[in-house]
């Protein structure tokens, strides 16, 4: 193995991959959320459909999307591998009686579980919208004389069903808890710990973990109610 792959597969290296991809995915969450807010524009989906067209056809965005797929893949695969190897490190016998709540927060201990919930959501979400948009048969709509795929219709139909809205909101709760620990944990893993800046990073992380998932969850709720 080269020195680089040895570095990235060491215990710290693997955590650094998790931290960097995690923070990268946080930037994606912001961009995606800003795009989603156009669902609430109240224009019958014109802005949203034009935006969807731009995001799936503009060459620079398409190129960046491959980096995004890689970020997701690395974060998911590395996460699953870490769950497995960290579990194995305990050995054959686990404690008969353990009291982890005395020394650590539930979110910090449940990153794997929360990640799995988000992964299930991610798979469903990709199949329902992304897969449909890219490979499925889409309803069409004419905007300014040009035919566009009507992603808005697909989304608004889905968010008329209480089951989808419920699952969506629950997944965002899991995302919130995941970010609650994950955001600040990423900085610690990268060695970015400082008496002056760490308290700010911690607060920013908590803010991010609350505001972003609420932003996502509020869209289907509003669409369901209106």
């Amino acid at each position: 193995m080269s020195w680089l792959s040895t570095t990235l597969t060491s215990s710290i290296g693997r955590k650094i991959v998790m931290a960097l991809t995690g923070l990268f995915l946080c930037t994606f969450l912001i961009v995606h959320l800003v795009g989603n807010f156009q669902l609430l524009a109240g224009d019958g989906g014109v802005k949203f459909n034009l935006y969807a067209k731009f995001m799936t056809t503009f060459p620079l965005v398409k190129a960046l999307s491959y980096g995004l797929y890689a970020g997701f893949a690395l974060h998911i695969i590395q996460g699953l591998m870490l769950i497995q190897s960290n579990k194995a490190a305990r050995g054959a016998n686990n404690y008969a009686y353990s009291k982890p709540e005395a020394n650590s927060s539930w979110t910090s201990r449940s990153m794997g579980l929360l990640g799995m919930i988000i992964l299930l959501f991610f798979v469903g979400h990709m199949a329902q919208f992304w897969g449909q948009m890219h490979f499925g048969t889409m309803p069409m709509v004419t905007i300014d004389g040009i035919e566009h795929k009507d992603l808005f219709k697909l989304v608004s139909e889905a968010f008329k069903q209480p089951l989808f809205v419920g699952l969506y909101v629950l997944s965002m709760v899991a995302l919130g808890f995941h970010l609650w620990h994950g955001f600040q944990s990423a900085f610690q893993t990268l060695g970015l710990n400082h008496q002056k800046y760490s308290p700010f990073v911690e607060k920013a992380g908590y803010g991010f973990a609350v505001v972003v998932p609420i932003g996502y969850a509020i869209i289907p709720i509003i669409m369901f109610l209106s």
Partner: protein
Amino acid sequence: MSAETRNYTLKVWRQSGSSAKGEIKTYEMKNVSVGASFLEMFDQLNEQLLANGEDPVAFDHDCREGICGMCSMYINGRPHGPDTGITTCQLHMRTFPDGETIYVEPWRAKPFPVIKDLTVDRGAFDRIIQAGGYVSVNTGNAQDANEILIPKAIADEAMDAAACIGCGACVAACKNASAMLFVSAKVSQLAVLPQGKSESSRRAQNMLAQMDSEGFGACTNTGACSSECPKEISLTHIARLNREYLRNRFTLNDVEEFQPIKKPDYLDFGV
């Protein structure tokens, strides 16, 4: 005047040898002085077992004053028991109400195999130290103590890290059985001092390579280690270890990898 005494039900992990299958056994303890330490209570249990012709419980202990790092019991779901900032030997029975059921288990980690009952082999820590937790010192007369000036804040930082007694409570508490707090303390105490500079270009990478080869888990930053540490070692040392590791890996002008130290045969307890 007689001291107050209490009765307890003990659930103790018994395992006759490293390859034997262990189990939790129940013992009734009567008339335990509230002033007894947890280890003294175990001495009392062992006298009781010997009187009945049974095998006494094997457990590690040495100084019994909280500085050697030998005692290692996982008591009621927590390393070194319910109190904070102390080792098992400094834990007193007055902490436990009368009639309480107390679970006592060994540290559970793949790199800490059980030798017998509550005794585990912590040789993995020694090999991590051997991999880089040292400084090279010239022979000859000791130099004057004031020749190398070290600011008080840095001396304090090094001392806080050096307080680590290597007991392994961090590994026992961690859901991943990670040794990051131990390794970070041992890296930190030398990284911040001029005396540690000679080996600093490869210390963190070598010690981490040894930690990984021993089979410890990775760090999830839960903070369980620091909460349970009898010396209250801070998580900031883990951030420093991460920085030192990255610096080593990306700036050291040498691609030859550290070869992890093998467990010596004479220390093989049949695991």
